[in-house]
């Protein structure tokens, strides 16, 4: 029966070209817009590290003074240097790392003018914790952290630019006029969003060079991010970056491989916070948090509100297209009242008529889906022309393709429900009389 209904539908399309064309236009516009918005939203709201996101956590403390305290408020977004160094020393997680963004000038030995790149100052566990893929070499060891070794891991992009893409392990890199030895070269790695540091551009590529944290501080390399201070920073030569500075500017991530470890780490944070309170460093009541990756992204509202708004706007437009398709389907079906009457008179049940027209609506949806896919590709192309940092990562994947067709067919079948129901009510005798 399905093939018969399909052939009936195709025959009706041939006879009714303008109406069918209008419907396909309406559906394809609605689908094209929705799929473009949905693709952008999916790219930005996805899990940046799916194989591990349930084991990575971002702890928060509240080291700020009572001035400005609001009960039930959020703890501080980032940590002070004192706190991260203490947490790292205690090593209560399976892996943990301090990190902060930076900006340095680099050049290869004997190269041309230096140029500025983004940097990340971190500790040894960073690479194993985030499963960073290596093209050559590996990260540094804990000894390099403590020994303030001048070693670095560079990105594939930087390796291509400075060393022609070859194995540069062991070669020298000049970072802000200091000699560094390359220990490793990362392969293509682009977690989207760049979840481990939400203070800089959240959707950009990863940093070009990774340097041990204490090395960067002893060389006073430039930092890039948010620096929030609540007290005097001038009493120390290192200023706001001193160990005891009343400033939060560092991120800290910890890997915890089981639920029990998560619970015990939370307790550890609480007792650490209380200990700092007793020592007089923390003034506020204990307010600690341990966020999972997706929880942290959600809390910080990583998907720009404009993108979410565009998604709603696109779906609103799809609703308008759906509604107008209902009217057009009604017109298409009811136009053939005499045909329905003949079929009913020949023995077709109401249900058969209903099915026939639903399948016709679905067929229109399928064609509309194809056209909508083309429009969505066009829409995605326009998005990629924008200068947003994530623009290059927006493309219609296989799951999006499937979603397009499912959405198109569902929309048109839903739109066809009312018209098909009306069609099945057509009384055969009335139609036969009016020949």
């Amino acid at each position, binding site marked *: 029966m399905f093939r018969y209904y399909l052939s009936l539908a195709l025959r009706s399309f041939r006879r009714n070209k303008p109406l069918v064309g209008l419907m396909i236009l309406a559906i394809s516009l609605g689908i094209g817009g929705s799929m473009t918005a949905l693709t952008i939203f999916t790219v930005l709201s996805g899990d940046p590290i799916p194989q591990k996101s349930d084991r990575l956590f971002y702890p928060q403390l509240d080291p700020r003074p009572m001035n400005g305290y609001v009960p039930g408020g959020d703890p501080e977004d980032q940590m002070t240097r004192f706190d991260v160094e203490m947490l790292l020393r205690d090593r209560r997680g399976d892996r943990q790392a301090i990190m902060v963004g930076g900006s340095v000038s680099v050049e290869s030995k004997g190269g041309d003018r*230096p140029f500025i790149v983004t940097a990340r100052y971190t500790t040894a566990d960073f690479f194993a914790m985030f499963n960073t893929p290596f093209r050559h070499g590996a990260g540094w060891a804990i000894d390099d952290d403590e020994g303030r070794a001048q070693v670095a891991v560079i990105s594939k992009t930087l390796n291509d630019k400075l060393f022609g893409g070859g194995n540069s392990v062991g070669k020298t890199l000049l970072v802000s006029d200091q000699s560094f030895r390359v220990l490793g070269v990362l392969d293509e790695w682009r977690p989207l969003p760049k979840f481990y540091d939400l203070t800089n551009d959240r959707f950009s590529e990863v940093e070009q060079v990774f340097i041990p944290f204490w090395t960067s501080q002893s060389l006073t390399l430039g930092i890039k991010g948010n620096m929030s201070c609540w007290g005097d920073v*001038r009493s120390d030569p290192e200023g706001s970056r001193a160990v005891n500075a009343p400033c939060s500017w560092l991120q800290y991530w910890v890997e915890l491989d089981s639920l029990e470890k998560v619970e015990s780490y939370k307790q550890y944070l609480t007792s650490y916070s209380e200990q700092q309170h007793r020592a007089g460093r923390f003034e506020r009541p204990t307010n600690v948090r341990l966020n999972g990756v997706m929880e942290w992204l959600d809390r910080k509202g990583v998907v720009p509100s404009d993108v*979410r708004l565009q998604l709603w706007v696109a779906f609103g437009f799809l609703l308008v297209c759906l509604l107008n398709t209902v009217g057009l389907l009604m017109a298409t079906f009811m136009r053939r009242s005499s045909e329905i009457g003949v079929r009913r008179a020949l023995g077709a049940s109401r249900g058969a008529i209903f099915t026939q027209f639903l399948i016709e609506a679905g067929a229109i949806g399928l064609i509309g889906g194809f056209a909508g896919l083309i429009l969505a590709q066009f829409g995605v192309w326009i998005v990629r022309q924008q200068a947003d940092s994530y623009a290059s990562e927006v493309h219609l994947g296989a799951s999006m393709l499937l979603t397009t067709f499912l959405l198109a067919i569902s929309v048109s079948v839903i739109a066809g429900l009312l018209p098909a129901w009306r069609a099945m009510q057509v009384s055969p005798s009335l139609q036969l009389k009016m020949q």
Partner: protein
Amino acid sequence: MEIYPILASLKRNKIQALLIVLEIALGCAIVSNAVFMIGQRMERMNRPTGMANEEIIRINVGGLAEGSNPGSVVRQDLANLRSIPGVKAATSLNHVPMDGASWDSSINISNDQTTPSLSAGVYLGEDIVNTLGLNIAEGRNFIAEDYVDWEGFNAQATDLRISSVIITREMAQRLFPGESAIGKQIYSWNPDNSPHRVVGVVERLIRPNDNGGSSAVGYSMLLPMKDVTMGRFALRTDPGRRKEVEQAAIALLESASSRRIILQHASFSDVMRDYYRKDRSMAWLLGVLMILLLTVTSLGIFGLVSFWVSQRTKQIGIRRALGATRMQVLRYFQLENFILATFGIVVGMIGAYGINLLLMNHYELERLPMLYLPFGAITLWIIGQLAVYSPARRATLVSPAVATQSI
């Protein structure tokens, strides 16, 4: 024109009438909000900065502070920049607004407050008022004695204090409502929490970014700092000479040291344009969407009404046979569409407010002003009439003889 027959006929074709009403309602609700959102974005893009936007160039330099005496390096740079023909004023500062960086400080008006009075954007540099083209509304600009050396201020165990501050009018009104802010004291940046005295009030200076939300966008303050060594320079020149001055300045800054890197350079109006890129895209998107939506709605109504007319040829024929003129038939359908559109628009207005409330709760949007509703109403009335014209004209061509054909 009798309304009753129209309403009676609608009652017998409830579903189709309801469809048209809903199509118009949804269209009206979305269009009203879309136009409003476009208006909001344009309003945001037109926010006054308080600066002479067209006269300013900003250049960010990296590798500046390396070396033994960054302060004297900056002094030399500024002397060189000020000697470029066409440069009216030049300064080294922490940032211009809308350039990706933001320095903020919480402000207290007394030393024993538990919560800050507000948070303001902080601009540090020499002669920012003249370089950015700000208007002093009250009091005075900074004088030579006010200025504190940047490197000296940041030195360990310094005894330098910033004694003066210039704030914006909005900030003055918020901190000291109803009185003059001149001479008042605020607490913000001094290491021992000694106060700054307000010596001047500028009409307006926009904050560096959206920190603090839209109500706090006018809270800015200027601190008198000399020879800031962050590598961010601003120049003021005539709008027509910006390109040449920019080139000259870049050449000059690059020549000072081979270790220098010019990070970004542009006119401030380009910086602004870049900052508002997302708002422009959103406005365009909403505009295109509105046009598509109205197109789809009018096509939908056109299709439905065409069919409806073809269903009612018998009625039309009878009316013509009983003496109705072609014009009366046309008017009948136009009036019928107008009534349906009116119902739709009324429902649409309510829907518009509903959508607006949803958007207000989830996105920073304001309440839809009444002004936008007539716009949606008129648009949809016009769309409806346009869509119905062609089918209605076809209806007038139905011959009265149809009435006498088969029953």
